[in-house]
């Protein structure tokens, strides 16, 4: 286990050498990820880790992938997707064009879930799904629309509980252990690298989803990200967070009203 002092040095050096700012990450979570990496990669001492993190570009990439959490699934929390289907998306349906931002999209499972919902509500043709992540490696995975077949059974079950209308297999073709999702879904997606702390607003959205990303931030970083979302949402737009996340520690809270159930807030002013 690394010492607090070493963790602090690592954070400082990652910023100095690569411009990645982890200073506002949840200290408990960041330490756990770094300790795990240290053990997994068999380092003998901290200096060895530090010098690789500084100057080995390939290793740095690997490090970012391992420190940031990229565990995600399609239709995670099915009741959330049911609420999107029955309450949120129908109110957006009257708009001529629907802009959605998946902030911290990881490997894209939630973006594809959204595209499937939009397709079933006959809204996909007039929607655009912007999907961003800090980590370019996960975006490359997401763009392909290829997900391991072994995960599909769970996703199909989530989809069914979320009131899916079709046979889930209508949306993909199985090939060499992967499910390849249809190009029609992919054609409405725009993937790009974006850092929620250092990059600004880039469009105005009707719905922003950022689920289980803020949990890795401390209160300061959460505030920065939430202010960015506020700035990037149209009036009466929606913000959706993870089931255990909240906006109640931030300054934007009084401009938003939470739905009765689910972690979805409507921007009132």
């Amino acid at each position, binding site marked *: 286990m690394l010492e607090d002092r070493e963790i602090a040095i690592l954070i400082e050096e990652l910023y100095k050498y690569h411009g990645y700012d982890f200073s506002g990450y949840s200290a*408990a979570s960041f330490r756990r*990820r770094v300790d795990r990496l240290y053990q997994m990669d068999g380092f003998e001492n901290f200096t060895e880790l530090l010098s690789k993190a500084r100057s080995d570009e390939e290793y740095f990439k690997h490090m970012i992938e391992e420190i940031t959490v990229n565990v995600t699934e399609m239709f995670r929390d099915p009741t959330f997707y049911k609420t999107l289907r029955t309450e949120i998306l129908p109110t957006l349906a009257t708009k001529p064009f629907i802009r959605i931002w998946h902030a911290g999209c990881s490997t894209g499972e939630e973006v594809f879930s959204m595209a499937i919902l939009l397709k079933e509500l006959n809204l996909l043709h007039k929607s655009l799904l912007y999907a961003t992540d800090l980590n370019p490696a996960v975006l490359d995975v997401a763009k392909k629309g290829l997900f391991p077949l072994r995960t599909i059974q769970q996703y199909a079950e989530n989809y069914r509980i979320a009131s899916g209308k079709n046979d889930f297999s209508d949306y993909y073709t199985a090939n060499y252990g992967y499910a390849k999702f249809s190009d029609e879904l992919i054609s409405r997606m725009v993937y790009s690298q974006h850092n929620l702390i250092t990059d600004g607003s880039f469009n105005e959205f009707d719905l922003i989803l950022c689920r289980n990303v803020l*949990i890795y931030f401390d209160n300061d970083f959460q505030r920065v990200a939430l202010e960015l979302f506020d700035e990037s949402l149209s009036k009466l737009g929606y913000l959706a967070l993870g089931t255990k996340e909240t906006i109640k520690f931030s300054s934007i809270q009084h401009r938003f009203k939470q739905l009765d159930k689910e972690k979805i807030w409507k921007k009132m002013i």
Partner: protein
Amino acid sequence: MEENDLKKHCKVLLIGGSAGSLEVLMAILPNLKPIINFAIVVILHRKSAEDSTLENLIAMKSTIPVAQVEDKEVLKSGFIYVAPSDYHLLFEKNKQLSLDVSEKVNYSRPSIDVSFESGAIAFGKKCTAILLSGANADGTEGLKAIQKAGGIVIVQNPENAAMPFMIQSVLSTMTPNHIMEVDELLDYINKIQ
């Protein structure tokens, strides 16, 4: 080590368990006196889909209030917290709770090891942990970390646990401070001040 001296320092009591531990928890939590100077955090293996049934069950049976676990809530003395399903529960040094959806550990999320190890770092010797019945090895590494940090480590007597494996895994690699029967656990917690 003088037991009473150590009890004074307890800020958080972590209770971990898996298969067969719910019954033990239900024999303990409803019979506790109000807790004033520390918080109880329960980390139980559970199905990812079951949502908040466990919280509701504990809230219904226990006189000690159950606090909602949300990201960055501050751990308050006098409350019971339950690690939510499908998240790892971590502790910040400023007593905030952090959640994490990273990989399962010991096939589990929440994982007992993850919360115990994090508790050891955040609270050190002010952390007491109890491990109950279970059928996998989750909890062993966490108890080691807590003991190393100076905290008190207790296991249920495996001979009377529904699933002794989890406790035996601990006993094969370390010596806990206490091995207790269920009624002794209740008595012990009621004496923590």
